């Protein structure tokens, strides 16, 4: 009987081993462990054994059942795993096919530059002031120390609507308006971005409409060295930490002293290249100390208050930064142009 059991175990294990799907395995289970299976039959035949032999044989039968059971489970796990793998293999896709595109637009490059500059100055405690594009001659010129008949008015041929109303030629009138609102009390700390207009023919370097950002700080004890420090800070944040700036004396009717501000070339680092025309410097800004006439006209005591102002052109900065060669691109809205500014 013992031999019979060992033989059954041997047979069962072999059949389990040979089963190559879950159904075959189940057949083995039914065949050997089922109610009508040979092991049950052996158990039934135990009645013929002596009382001493019975427990021994019972234990042996259990061992055999246990061994077959374990083999069945192990095989079942293996077969199930194989089944899953087969299914997954059938589900494979071509991961190199293109994904479902996400449509995404982006800022106009000028807005990109303007927002960057705005954020930079907001970080230094400035607020953003806006004002009308159609302006009174008074705010556009007279309040900025450009009385009627001033020779410097030639410098900016303007689009007049009536004798007293024109399209602003710079965003400086916003400065004049803001100062006036402060009623002679500082501090004033603003930047003024916006559209401006000049009577120019549109070509690669001129546009009758363009943008400007101007800044203004008025307070007691504002020094020209503060202007230099502020603009150096700006240049470094905008164009890189190792940038330097230099002032060149210049003339604007609304500031005195007036300077042009160069930033060391961010392309060559100052050694000279075609971006900086070999000079190592790039002209970026006009700036100066607010002219006392401008302060007084806006209601500030020029003996008590001083201030600085600066202005720059986002078009120029964008052209330098991105290597754009024609100012008209900014206003044609060619998507092949606009789409190039779609990432960090």
């Amino acid at each position, binding site marked *: 009987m013992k031999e019979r059991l060992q033989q059954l175990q041997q047979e069962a294990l072999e059949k389990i081993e040979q089963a190559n799907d879950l159904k075959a395995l189940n057949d083995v289970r039914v065949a050997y462990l089922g109610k009508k299976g040979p092991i049950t039959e052996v158990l039934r035949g135990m009645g013929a054994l002596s009382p001493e032999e019975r427990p021994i044989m019972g234990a042996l039968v259990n061992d055999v059942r246990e061994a077959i059971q374990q083999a069945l489970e192990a095989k079942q796990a293996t077969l199930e795993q194989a089944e899953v793998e087969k299914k997954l293999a059938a589900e494979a896709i071509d991961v190199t096919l293109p994904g*479902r*595109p996400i*449509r*995404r*637009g*982006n*800022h*106009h490059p*000028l*807005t990109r530059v303007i927002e960057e500059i*705005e954020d930079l100055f*907001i*970080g*230094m*405690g*400035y*607020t953003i002031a806006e004002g009308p*594009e*159609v302006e009174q001659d008074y705010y556009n010129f007279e309040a900025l120390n450009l009385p009627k008949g*001033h*020779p410097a008015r*030639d*410098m900016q041929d303007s*689009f*007049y*609507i*009536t004798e*007293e*109303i024109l*399209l602003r030629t710079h965003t400086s009138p916003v400065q004049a308006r803001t100062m006036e609102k402060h009623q002679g009390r500082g*501090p004033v700390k603003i930047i003024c971005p916006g*559209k401006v*207009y000049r*009577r120019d023919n549109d070509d690669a370097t001129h546009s*009758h*409409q363009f943008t400007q950002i101007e800044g203004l700080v008025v307070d*007691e*004890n*504002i*020094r*020209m*060295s*503060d202007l*230099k*420090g*502020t603009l150096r800070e700006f240049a470094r944040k905008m164009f890189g930490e190792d940038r330097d700036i230099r002032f*060149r*004396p*210049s*003339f604007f009717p609304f500031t005195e*002293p007036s300077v042009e501000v160069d930033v060391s070339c961010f392309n060559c680092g100052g050694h000279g290249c075609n971006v900086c025309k070999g000079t190592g410097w790039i002209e970026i800004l006009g700036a100066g*100390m607010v002219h*006392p006439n401008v302060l007084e006209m806006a209601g500030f005591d020029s003996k008590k208050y001083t201030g600085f102002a600066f202005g720059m052109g986002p078009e120029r900065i964008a052209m330098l930064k991105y290597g754009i060669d024609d100012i008209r691109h900014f*206003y*044609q*809205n*060619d*998507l*092949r142009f*606009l789409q190039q500014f779609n990432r960090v």
Partner: protein
Amino acid sequence: MFVSYKWLQEYVDLTGITAKQLADRITKAGIEVESVEVRNKGVQGVVIGHVLEREQHPNADKLSKCLVDIGEGEPVQIICGAPNVAKGQKVAVAKVGAVLPGNFKIKRAKLRGEESNGMICSLQELGVESKLVPKEYADGIFVFPSDAPVGADALELLYLDDEVLELSLTPNRADCLSMIGVAYEVAAILGRSVKLPTIELHENNENVHDYISVRVDAQEDNPLYAGRIVKNVKIGPSPLWMQARLMAAGIRPHNNVVDITNYILLEYGQPLHAFDYDRLGSNEIVVRRAKKGETIVTLDDVERTLTEEHLVITNGKEPVALAGVMGGANSEVCDETVNVFIEAAYFNGATIRQAVKDHGLRSESSTRFEKGIDPARTKEALDRAAALMAEYAGGEVVGGVVEANTLQLKDVVVTITLDRINRVLGTTITKEEVAGILTNLQFTFTEDNGTFTITVPSRRRDIAIEEDIIEEVARLYGYDHLPATLPIGEANPGKLTPYQAKRRKVRRYLEDAGLFQAITYSLTNEAKATMFALETAEPIRLALPMSEERSVLRQSLVPHLLEAASYNRARQVENVALYEIGSVYLANGENELPNEKERLAGVLTGVWHAHLWQGEKKAVDFYVVKGILDGLFALLGLENRVEYKQAKREHLHPGRTAEILLDHKTIGFVGQLHPNVQKQFDLKETYVFELDLEALLNVEVDDIRYTAIPRFPSITRDIALVVDEHVVAGELQKAIIEAGGELLKDVSIFDVYKGDRLPEGKKSIAFSLRYYDPERTLTDEEVTNVHEQVIKAVEQQFGATLRG
């Protein structure tokens, strides 16, 4: 202003400073030197030769055979093609071995059988621009004065070994429109002194008043008018050095009298005019405003009609010059002129500017008057001109000056403390440094305990207040020495206004939704100005537009966005989605600023979404655009306050346009372009929208308040309603929400059907209704009760039936 480096040395010592270095120093101190032109264009080996003999070339009509003494060895034979070569002339000779511009080497040669040992040169051949060559030598060789030393370097005599600095002057530095002015500037920069020209004037014992009188009837336009008579002049060429200097400065030499007036203009910055005294037509000069319709023929032979705004010099009867701009042809100095009346005047800049503008005539003279000359030097310049005419035109200066002078010259005195200078600049400049700078500028000053009292020289008319002095100190001290600091004082945090912050969010939202930001022009044409406008007003026209296309301010952003779409389509970019935020301009009446209103507009056309290999392709349609706008309103917290109302608007599809209302007020529209407009802009099916951005962003919105997350299950019921086809979904939905009451939380549309399975004129809309009570689990019965009410309501209001 062109500044000859060689000529400048007449007034200031430039030892040890090259032209290039000088240019850099001048630029650094505030006047931009745009270029330094080397006048020698590669010429070498050109000397003064003396034409000893000239005869016809035996084998060529147009050639001359010359024997020329070039100051070394035997005279040489040179074949010359110039028509004006003649025996006895002093000429420029390029010797054998010489080089002319373009690396043209002169070799010994045979021309038509005759030997030629060099070349007699015209000025053009030496690299002088044609427009500067004296007219009489324009088509031939240049003839030097007879005293030109044989063998001398011709380049040196012609100032072709010179370098010329081109100054780009800002309007405040009119003082540098003269060599003397530039000399003062350079002297201040270099810390050297200025040598002024010495004037040796010998007057005869006649009295100028016996020759001429002067009266000014327009004293505001002409506060100073002075003149001298130089008699018995001989018109001829001016001295070579003068011609050379004029050419270096960009002025063509004419004759001695005219050249002298031009020379003084350049030297002193004082424009002069020389009249032929005998052709003046009277013995008086009257300066007055022109009469309307009066005419004058100016030197350029153009007849000009004048108005009361123009100032004229007259002989008491008729104009003889357009004051400060150009002389009259009738009194012009010519070869036969014997007696000259020299005018030196100070004219008001604005008056001259008016004439320049009206006649489109700008001259070296008018430029200087416009920018302002130094009236303190007017008479000195006159004396110098008279002295030079005596010396170089053989004239005789009649005793005395005629003048009409109402000018009141007052010294400008500025007082400033050292402390103020340092406080404005943020520097620690010493008293001694400031004194040094003022001394170099040749400003007269006294200093007392750090207070400077400065008398400003009349040539520096740009200096009148403390800040002007601060600027002088700063630029000569050097901005490189300025420290870099940051403002001290209270620091307020910077931030965007709520409007600015929301506007940025709107931009980002639209871009993330797939639209690109456009920026278009504010100026448009009359027809496009009011197209699509949400509100219209009288168009605002420019007084002087540059073109009709850019002559009127826009009242809507849509037309230019359509142009942008069209521009892209013409370049094979068919799928366009653009938005713009910008101002429109609505007139407010004459002499009032217009209302500028910020609008948000967009244009969409072509394919909206495509994932082709998966079979997805969706063209832009009304609902794509509406979905984007819905998202925008949701972003702004306005989704429940905005409505769309079917509308008809000009230029839009009558059945596919909606007006958008916020709190029941129209704030915009969205719709498909009318086929006619579509064609006009050369577009395919296109959708546009425009919104009043200010209305959207300025409206008060509640802050976000948390509401409890649902704890109980909700129950969803779907209904399909059959209604007349003209019933709109929005109305139906509104009725459902009203009837559903508190428990009805969501209503969404999941199907719209029209077709064979329904009777003619009917459509079905299927809604999904979700019921929920935050306090408890709803029973089926409760939901059924409410749902029945909903169905009853739509049956009553719309005659809706449930679709079976």
